[in-house]
């Protein structure tokens, strides 16, 4: 039975939850397919995550391998294929708790970087899992900055082989997933040397473990890098190479080839490869970033409707903590952000699909813009959502700290997204570089890509809002965001130019402006997110109350951004002190409005209880019963040897015998 505190929340929904779920999924048919996949996975005990919080690293790893192997069978059974409509939901249904994710990256890099002959040789056995691949790029001493990698591959004409080496400890490959224990092969990125000359970073297929008994190949040192904050189920690994020889054919040679005589040949355009790297950043947003945030919101908001604390009115029973303004102010903006980023993700996916079609037609015009958007949004969304999940965690008080709440795992998992696929600060600076360039071009009257045309139309002026209701007008707040983005970009551009004109070296000037450049890039992405949210709301059908509630969330997202960053809007007087008080008033009013729909808004994310795996967040709200029941399963509740060994002598004062 459903806890009455949660049941009552659902009776007052102002919109159709089912319709909103369909909107999030991209149509009712998609919802149906997704639920079918989830049902198939969850009804299979091999995929159960029931004991996940009690397992050791070794147990988690083993379970993940077992699931990965079983998944092959399951897909075959269900008739799911990699190109089918079900495929994208499998990962969500498994909550990512499965091994061999890097195997796919291994296969994709061969498909993208390999010659037709190499694809024909490697892809069929990889598809059948006769070999398991990984992708070894990052080194102990080098991450995002690829040119700095130190692993070497020297071409030996005599034997027609490459000799791979890890010349020093900081050059050891470090972090690649599936490499610590599972992989038999890996794509190694190394500096290519021919006749003593360095040709830069190239990819090589290297076998690291025997296909018979899984022992390490000669010259290979590999293992697991040890416990991390999360991803216990993945064997992130290290790899050291000592005079490892591989045939010339193992260098992936779609774009660059080393001929038998040692001649180095470039062929074709690398741009398509560049595009692939860019799309990875976008493709991770949905599963790795939005899903954890939506789960965290679901857990924290449902729990806040069940948890009661202190009294709001004398004589009444203790109030739901969701009724406290301070609790609403913690959680509801995170909920609004989940929706805002869901819609910007849709927008980016569409843009990248279009970009892909253009590139296939050999039109590379969109590439710089796509690159800037993917970098900036990867950084902004991962950063924002990570912070949001932590807020949800802390909003659940003591019980949030229990692993059984599910929140610590969500947090430790999502925060890795701020680092992988490009460290966020570096990515924001890449976006900033693009913005500065476009700003200069726009100022000089040259054409600029669509997402930045606003930089050309700088209009001075003040925010026209006259009362607090004006701040619920999307044109008013979107304009304010635009103004701030333009101001930050133009003032940084001016400062850069001033520094350079005063004789400061270009790179020094850049480093001196990086703090501002990061702020400018963030402002740009924030503006696009608000603008897109507002545009999306306008296009929604007005039926079933969906548009109204989405409009509220859009307003809340926008006003929360202003409220928590007032200085940027006040700085040049675009928003006045009096107007800022109106923003605050409207913002706080909205909290009370959205409060009424908070539980239905998280119900619409449509996570099953098994998928949430949280004692606090289940649909029925039976929080305390579940917490008690799960705690009893803890391995620590089996008799511990600590009592006989240490406690007993302590209690009996026989310490000296120890």
């Amino acid at each position, binding site marked *: 039975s459903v806890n009455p505190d949660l049941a009552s929340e659902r009776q007052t929904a102002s919109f159709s939850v089912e319709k909103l779920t369909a909107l999030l999924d991209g149509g009712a048919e998609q919802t149906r397919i997704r639920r079918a996949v989830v049902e198939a996975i969850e009804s299979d005990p091999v995929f159960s995550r029931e004991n996940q919080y009690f397992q050791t690293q070794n147990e988690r790893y083993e379970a993940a391998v077992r699931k990965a192997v079983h998944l092959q069978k399951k897909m075959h059974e269900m008739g799911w294929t990699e190109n089918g409509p079900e495929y994208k939901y499998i990962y969500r249904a498994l909550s990512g708790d499965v091994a061999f994710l890097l195997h796919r990256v291994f296969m994709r890099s061969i498909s993208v970087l390999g010659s037709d002959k190499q694809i024909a040789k490697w892809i069929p056995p990889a598809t059948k899992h006769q070999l398991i691949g990984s992708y070894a790029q990052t080194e102990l001493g080098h991450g995002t900055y690829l040119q700095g990698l130190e692993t070497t591959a020297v071409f030996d004409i005599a034997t027609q082989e490459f000799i791979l080496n890890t010349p020093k400890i900081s050059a050891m490959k470090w972090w690649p997933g599936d490499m610590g224990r599972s992989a038999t092969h890996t794509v190694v990125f190394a500096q290519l040397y021919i006749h003593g000359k360095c040709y830069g970073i190239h990819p090589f297929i290297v076998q690291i473990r025997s296909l018979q008994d899984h022992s390490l190949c000669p010259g290979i040192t590999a293992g697991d890098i040890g416990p991390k*904050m999360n991803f216990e189920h993945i064997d992130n690994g290290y790899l050291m190479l000592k005079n490892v020889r591989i045939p010339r054919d193992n260098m992936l040679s779609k774009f660059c080839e080393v001929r038998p005589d040692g001649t180095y040949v470039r062929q074709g355009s690398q741009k398509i490869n560049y595009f692939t790297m860019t799309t990875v950043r976008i493709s991770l947003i949905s599963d790795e970033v939005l899903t954890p945030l939506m789960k965290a919101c679901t857990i924290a908001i449902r729990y806040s409707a069940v948890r009661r604390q202190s009294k709001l009115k004398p004589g009444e029973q203790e109030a739901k903590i969701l009724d406290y303004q301070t609790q609403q102010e913690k959680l509801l903006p995170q909920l609004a952000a989940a929706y805002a980023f869901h819609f910007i993700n849709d927008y980016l996916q569409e843009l990248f699909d279009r970009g892909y079609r253009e590139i296939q037609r050999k039109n590379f015009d969109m590439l710089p813009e796509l690159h800037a958007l993917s970098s900036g949004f990867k950084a902004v969304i991962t950063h924002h959502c990570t912070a949001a999940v932590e807020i949800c965690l802390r909003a659940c008080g003591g019980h949030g700290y229990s692993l059984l709440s599910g929140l610590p795992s969500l947090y430790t998992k999502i*925060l890795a997204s701020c680092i992988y696929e490009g460290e966020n600060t570096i990515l924001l600076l890449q976006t900033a570089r693009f913005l500065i360039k476009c700003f200069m071009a726009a100022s000089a009257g040259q054409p600029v890509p669509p997402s930045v045309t606003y930089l050309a139309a700088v209009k001075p002026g003040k925010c026209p809002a006259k009362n607090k209701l004006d701040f619920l007008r999307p044109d008013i707040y979107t304009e304010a965001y635009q103004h701030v983005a333009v101001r930050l970009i133009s003032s940084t551009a001016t400062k850069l130019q001033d520094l350079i004109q005063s004789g400061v070296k270009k790179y020094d000037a850049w480093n001196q402006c990086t703090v501002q450049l990061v702020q400018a890039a963030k402002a740009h992405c924030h503006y696009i997110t608000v603008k897109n949210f507002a545009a999306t709301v306008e296009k929604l059908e007005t039926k079933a109350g969906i548009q109204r509630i989405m409009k509220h969330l859009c307003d809340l997202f926008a006003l929360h951004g202003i409220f928590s960053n*007032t200085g940027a809007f006040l700085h040049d007087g675009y928003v006045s002190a009096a107007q800022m008080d109106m923003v605050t008033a409207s913002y706080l009013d909205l909290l009370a409005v959205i409060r009424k729909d908070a539980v239905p808004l998280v119900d619409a994310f449509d996570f099953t209880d098994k998928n949430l795996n949280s004692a606090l967040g289940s649909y029925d709200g039976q929080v305390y019963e579940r917490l008690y029941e799960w705690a009893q399963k803890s391995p620590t509740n089996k008799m511990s040897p600590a009592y006989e060994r240490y406690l007993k002598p302590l209690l009996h004062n026989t310490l000296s015998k120890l």
Partner: protein
Amino acid sequence: EALVLNDPDFQHEDLNFLSRSQRYEQAIRKSALMVMKLREHGIADPEEIFWFKSFVHRGRPEPLDLHLGMFLPTLLTQATPEQQDRFFMPAWNLEIIGTYAQTEMGHGTHLRGLETTATYDPATQEFILNSPTVTSIKWWPGGLGKTSNHAIVLAQLYTQGQCKGLHAFIVPIRQLGTHEPLPGITVGDIGPKFGYDEMDNGYLKMDNFRIPRENMLMKHAQVEPDGTYVKPVSDKLTYGTMVFIRSIIVGDSARSLSRACTIAIRYSAVRHQSELKPGEPEPQILDYQTQQYKLFPLLATAYAFHFVGAYIKDTYHRISGDISEGDLSELPELHALTAGLKAFTSWVANAGIEECRMACGGHGYSRCSGIPDIYVTFTPSCTYEGENTVMMLQTARFLVKSYTQVSSGQQVTGMVSYLNDLSRQRVQPQHVAARTVTVRINDPASLVEAYKARAARLVEAAAKNLQAELNHRRSKEDAWNRTSVDLVRASEAHCHYVVVKLFTAKLSEVSNAAVRAVLTDLCLLYALFGISKNTGDFLQAGILTSAQITQVNQHVKELLAVIRPNAVALVDSFDFHDVHLGSVLGRYDGNVYENMFEWAKKSPLNKTEVHASFHKHLKPMQSKL
């Protein structure tokens, strides 16, 4: 320190490689040893015990924490002499190990909501303890799960059919000798948590469990044999303990943030990445402005909180003299101030630790960096000993009260005396505008004034909004709730002012000129960075102009460059031993990469060269396909 570090009995495998049960076992082993060694060395001074303990457990929680930190002190302050005779020596000798069971599954910070009952039965002269609902199960007390055989239980006292509110009872929970739970007691561990792996936080359910009347702690309130209830004299005294515990948390915020800064700054000096100047080797990442901007303000914050912690402790010691003489006049302000500062410093430190970890990139995510551990150990302090938002609202209540006093013409004293100026400003509104020019951004004392003005304006705004809600004829509670976001902001501004003020005041006490110079830079950075992160408040109130804000931002960046050469020395000054720091990235000798490799080789997954799951799962799959 050396006593512990050189003692082979306290060595063990890296905790990161142990399971939870193993970590608990190690902690218990060390606690048992610790007690023995404390006696062997004749250490009895509380400060010395604290240091000894923190080195044995490397700053980590341990199962006897609640016994030493709550059970024994509560006996001392709340037990009658007879009760002390019965319980104190056995507890001191660890025949009795106790914990303090207050929090319930459904109730935390709001104590009056606790549901456990203790009903007096005059026929047998016993209390009957019950956990009437699932939500009333005691949940979280440290050491309860597996270690303790007694607990001080807080329960609603019922006698002669009336509820007399919360009282404390000494409850035996496990059989002496066998350590089995007593009949009527259900007790166990609450399962895995984010951190605190070595602590057996527990649950406790009682079904008609009877204890003798003499087990109620009766120094203050009493139940007589016939069931007559005798009221306690004053409850303000408990303020003193709370102030003390919160002052420890402020110190803990400083320490935890200092540890994270030490790791991140040393590592940033070792890590090289990309290029700053074309053609030159990769620079230390500490040379990047963005990296300095992440770390140096946190370093300044760690120093600031250190001085705040010391201040509260001193103040507490100063006025606890007055308290024992019955003068409680300073307590309310100190109580309100420490509530806010506990919340302010723990929030900031919590976020700061995470930023340090992020600043270490991928390797920060590995447990070998030590920062994940610092974070998960520290983050519950935002919740325990009073949830932070609730703490901020307590401070706000005091601020609003002080503001109301000023409005009605009374003067207020202490840290809130700036509110007295508000009434003067209302007479001369142009005064505010005139003051704008006088803020000198190179002068800490002048910045204190700026923070003071911001706090005054936000307290006033919150108080006025509260009044406006009341004028809408809302109930007091409703009006308070509708203003609570403003009230929290006001409290934060107040606490921020106090921190800047205390840091600035500390500068004049430093006699060494070089130390004073570098601390002045840090103090300026702390104050200016705080402005640049909250420019809206200063702009909106007209305390600073946009031009001044631009200068502030510029000056922050100049200070980063000034502090850069001293950065490593400033974290070395925190003087954390490598063993205590527990971080491969933060090692004093900076030999990061070699030691990461050594560390990784010990990972449990590397125990065998070919993992068992190859034979179990991989091999069968490969042969089948």
